[in-house]
């Protein structure tokens, strides 16, 4: 004869028995985290305005001064390059946001909540990368297309417009979005390695914008041989319609190298996140 033990002695089992940590669940969580911070929304808005607006603004100024341009400048005017030029400014916002996506969690302590919910840790990093890549690519592609069509409409008055079907035009427009997406992912990696906002942003600026400056003060033979491999120069091949010189990597080779740099940063971040105490 069996006796039912008193129920009060039994430790309760969670009523939420169907709950499971899965990558799709973590992706949803990271999407919520990204969209619910005011700083994120502002930074993304700035990047969209820069990417969509800078090209048309420059084009409008150039068209109004068209007669003052030298004949050579008019002959080589590239409305595709002008159109996607917004990446020069937008990349700064994207890079900073990439760093903040991780370091913002470390500086506030949120990372402890994140890692307690997902103790295997790496799904948090993968989910951040997936969400950030999707959001950045969608926004930058849309902005890049807006800039492209706006600029072509502006420059039509002097008949220097391009169609999206012209050689390299579509690739450049999509490339501007691709470059910035991978840049953002690399910055998530930098943030994960350094876990400190100031350090992460310093590393991003140093790798992208300081290295070319240092390279430029080296003997020109040295500069010529390393310059094409620097992150900025390699990464932006895909967002460039017509190159100023010949010292650059082929479009997709350069971009592939840039993806390699990003992969190295992300791998180091993954190792760091797994090894370090939170």
């Amino acid at each position, binding site marked *: 004869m069996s006796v039912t033990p008193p129920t009060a002695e039994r430790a*309760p089992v*969670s009523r939420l028995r169907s*709950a499971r940590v*899965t990558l799709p*669940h973590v992706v949803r969580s990271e999407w919520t985290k990204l969209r619910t*911070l005011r700083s994120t929304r502002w930074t993304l808005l700035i990047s969209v305005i820069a990417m969509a607006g800078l090209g048309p603004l420059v084009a409008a100024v150039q068209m109004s001064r068209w007669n003052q341009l030298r004949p050579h400048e008019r002959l080589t005017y590239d409305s595709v390059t002008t159109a996607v030029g917004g990446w020069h400014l937008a990349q700064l916002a994207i890079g900073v946001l990439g760093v903040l996506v991780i370091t913002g969690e470390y500086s506030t*302590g949120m990372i402890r*909540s994140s890692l307690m919910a997902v*103790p295997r840790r790496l799904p948090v990093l993968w989910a951040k990368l997936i969400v950030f890549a999707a959001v950045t690519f969608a926004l930058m592609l849309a902005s890049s297309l807006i800039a492209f069509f706006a600029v072509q409409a502006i420059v039509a008055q002097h008949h220097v417009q391009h169609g999206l079907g012209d050689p390299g035009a579509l690739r450049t427009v999509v490339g501007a979005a691709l470059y910035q997406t991978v840049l953002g992912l690399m910055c998530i990696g930098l943030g994960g390695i350094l876990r400190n906002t100031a350090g992460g942003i310093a590393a991003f600026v140093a790798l992208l914008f300081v290295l070319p400056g240092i390279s430029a003060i080296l003997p020109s033979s040295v500069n010529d041989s390393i310059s094409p491999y620097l992150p900025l120069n390699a990464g932006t091949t895909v967002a460039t319609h017509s190159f100023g010189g010949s010292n650059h990597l082929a479009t997709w080779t350069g971009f592939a190298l840039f993806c390699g740099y990003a992969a190295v940063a992300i791998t180091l971040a993954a190792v760091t996140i797994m090894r370090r105490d939170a």
Partner: protein
Amino acid sequence: MIEVDSVTKRFGDKVALQDLTFTVRPGIVTGFLGPNGAGKSTTMRVILGLDRPNEGRATINGRSYRDLPAPLTEVGALLEARAIHTGRSAYNHLLSMAQTHGIGRERVREVIELVGLSEVARKRAGGFSLGMGQRLGVAAALLGDPSTVILDEPANGLDPEGILWIRTMLRGLAAEGRTVFLSSHLMAEMAQTADHLVIIGRGRLIADTTVADLVTQASHDAAVIVRSPQADELRDALAADGVAIASPERGVLEVQGMTSAQVGEAAARHGIVLHELIAGQASLEQAFMRLTGGDVEFHASIFGGPEPGREPAA
């Protein structure tokens, strides 16, 4: 059930936890006591997979925290250090945590209601008072309706109303049959809530006992105070193995290792006059301080005399 098995944790040269072993049994409130800096938070962080031990391991229901398929439904934790993005609202913070487990918005609203944050749930957590922050932390801990709850110094810095709220909540959790593991550096606070006590100092286990046993032991060890005009003769009469006698002033003895009855009878046998005989009494607080006195990391010596169990004022 939480099992901490031979855990050693070093931060550089500093040993935070030294071969620490204890078990938190299910369905009761276990108090985790130790002076500041004893390693309580580190132990909890090791249990929760936030810190990786150099040796040993901690398991929850037989598994490492890291291997739990839905950790929030098994263990809920409120850490002492803040763990909330200041720019996010309470609702969105909880929602983002719930979503990692596929837990719905209904449960998020439920825990917000439970801790009484409904009115401020849409406000940025950065503007929360300490008490509201603790409530949000408790809401996060209860999100997965876990059978085990770990709380690190939940009453620290709270006003009396907040402390009362935390206590009521803890009793409620225990009454529901949940395992509660609760840290504090205040013995008095523990005596009111805990059934079992795990006491550590400098990262080592000092005692693994019940509140009742600790009181008995403390009273037994407390000194008997005796006043006599023949103090020197009495001292000789009482001298025996295991008896420690001190004389804080002329004509007064503090006797450790004997009961007041034994002291009185010994005096009578030797015909010694006693003016006063006070039985040893020790509060839990004293018992705790005596246990941890030698293991406090920082003594308040610069402020004149050691004050065991306290950190110097920062």
